[in-house]
């Protein structure tokens, strides 16, 4: 209860400041969000979608809450919400699950939204890169909102990276909403590369129009505690989603991916592949539901979760789920949890490769499939390097970032 109170008290205290700093669209959602959050509080493990998270404990520390608007020069196609087109601004908080306490908390406390808007038939020449950087001289809680609007026939690659430049404790509550018009195509990458003191709640909500396609890749390279939620609504016939993810975790890291693919109309396709490599005493969880609603005939769906526990103390919880209310569909789901392949290890050692290096090659190999599925070649090459560095423990905190050089 204390955890809830600290946020409601804070809100009551700074309500006026928040309203003043924010925009009418965001403020219009705020009081309802406050009521939802105050009434529902933090979800417990009894809530189906939070079985593997310890939400209250994660939100309990009383960090200072940052209320600053977006900083830095924004890349092309990116806007502060106040500067976006009115019809785009109006989509704020329309796709997110507003009954969810984590989303409500975000709507209650966020003062600005980064809007990515790709107009009809346009295709940015370069990938749009959004770099979230956590830094400061004290611990902090950060609320971030991103709204991506792809108009009809728009195409884009959007890369969102989360990094931390200082060794403080950070708690991030990020909500990303994606609205895709008919025939829009988006590749969305979410790369987390923070540190052990970072806790992140990342909730992504996608609404897809007719014949649109989304390729979503979630990469947890380094973190402390992470909970990723991905909800995709296939609302237009012929739409497709590929949702892949890979997790590299060791020490006491915790990574929880929770997905829902909602097939609402006929002739849509979904494909999910999540792979985890867990070392030391790390804990992974994957719960993915594919919901095929009544009338969503000719649905094609495939869901795979494969996991490698490199030690006996690493733990993995895997829960692929299929719920089907249509009779003419092709759906499959499956999961595996395995250990290091001892015969492959020995084979490599017999060729002179020491055991540590051999283990490393095998771990990197396990998630290669996910990296190779990335359509953007330059990112693929870069990620192979990053994964190798991560496995070797050489991942610099903030490589390539001007602030850290």
């Amino acid at each position, binding site marked *: 209860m204390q955890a809830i109170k600290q946020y409601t008290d804070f809100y009551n205290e700074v309500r006026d400041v928040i309203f003043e700093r924010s925009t009418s669209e965001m403020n219009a959602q705020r009081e309802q969000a406050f009521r939802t959050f105050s009434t529902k509080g933090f979800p417990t493990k009894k809530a189906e979608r939070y079985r593997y998270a310890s939400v209250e404990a994660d939100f309990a520390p009383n960090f200072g809450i940052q209320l600053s608007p977006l900083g830095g020069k924004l890349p092309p196609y990116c806007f502060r919400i106040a500067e976006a087109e009115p019809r785009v601004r109006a989509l704020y908080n329309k796709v997110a699950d507003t009954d969810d306490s984590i989303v409500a908390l975000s709507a209650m406390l966020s003062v600005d939204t980064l809007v990515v808007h790709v107009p009809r038939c346009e295709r940015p020449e370069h990938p749009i890169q959004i770099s979230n950087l956590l830094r400061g001289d004290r611990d902090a809680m950060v609320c971030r909102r991103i709204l991506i609007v792809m108009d009809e026939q728009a195409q884009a690659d959007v890369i969102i990276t989360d990094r931390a430049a200082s060794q403080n404790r950070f708690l991030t509550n990020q909500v990303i909403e994606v609205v895709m018009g008919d025939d829009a195509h988006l590749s969305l990458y979410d790369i987390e590369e923070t540190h052990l003191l970072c806790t992140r709640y990342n909730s992504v909500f996608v609404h897809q129009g007719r014949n649109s396609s989304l390729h979503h890749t979630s990469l947890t390279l380094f973190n402390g505690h992470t909970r990723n939620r991905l909800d995709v609504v296939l609302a237009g016939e012929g739409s497709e989603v590929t949702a892949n993810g890979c997790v590299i975790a060791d020490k006491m890291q915790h990574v929880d991916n929770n997905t829902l693919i909602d097939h609402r109309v006929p002739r849509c396709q979904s494909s999910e592949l999540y792979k985890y490599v867990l070392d030391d005493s790390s804990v992974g969880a994957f719960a993915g539901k594919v919901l095929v609603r009544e009338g969503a005939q000719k649905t094609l769906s495939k869901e795979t979760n494969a996991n490698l526990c490199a030690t006996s103390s690493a733990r993995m919880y895997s829960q692929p789920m299929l719920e089907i209310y249509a009779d003419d569909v092709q759906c499959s789901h499956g999961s595996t949890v395995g250990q290091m*392949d*001892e*015969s*492959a290890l*020995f*084979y*490599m*050692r*017999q*060729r*002179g*490769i*020491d*055991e540590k*290096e051999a283990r490393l*090659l*095998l771990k*990197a*190999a*396990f*998630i*290669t*499939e996910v990296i190779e599925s990335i359509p953007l070649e330059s990112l693929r090459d870069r990620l192979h390097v990053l994964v190798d560095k991560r496995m070797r423990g050489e991942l610099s905190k903030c490589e390539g970032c001007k602030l850290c050089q």
Partner: protein
Amino acid sequence: MLQISNLHASIGGKEILKGIDLTVKDGEVHALMGLNGAGKSTLSGVIVGHPAYEVTQGSITWDGKDLLSLKPEERANEGIFLSFQQPVEIPGVSMVNFMRAALNARRKHQGLDPLPAAEFLKLMREKRKIVELDSKLTSRSVNEGFSGGEKKRNEIFQMAMLEPRLAILDETDSGLDVDALRIVAEGFNKLRTPQTSAIVITHYQRLLDYLRPDTVHVLIDGRIVKTGGPELAAEIESRGFDWIVKGME
């Protein structure tokens, strides 16, 4: 020089090798024949340090060094190579990365710098030709989707890359058709130097016709019961092992 004395080894508490004595001098090729389950693969496993086997008695030295105290990777880097009876598939690890890691580990052991990328790829191309291994195969993951014969060829390709001083061929001829066998055997002969020695485990005369062993040993129930020249292999080919077993009784 490899020197094995009174070697006893077991797996899961069951004794498989019951006192092996074998000396392989530089440049020599020794053939090891015997019925299934006699301990031939166990012997090769023990030499390369497979963790499943426990040595309960005896010793193995390599150029006077205590081989049994070395890790598998150290033995490999000392120049001991096993062509696996069943090469392992390693999805996700490319042949290029695998060979580079192996070759550079060897070079590091020898106090050499890693081979520059261009030179390494050139070496891959050259050595591939020796066993006529398709470039499509070396661009794949290790052994993944290779046929049985391709896997065996790949073993000899790796041997060509690593230039061992002692090669153990564990039934490298099994699963090979006549042409593939010739390519593998001739490839092996091309790679031999006056210092290269080999232990060849086989059931068949055909591979030995190519490799021309100096000595042939017969292993039965964990012991070497008969040693002779190449003519012994020919005799086994025509008469089987029965007469040797009977002679022991």
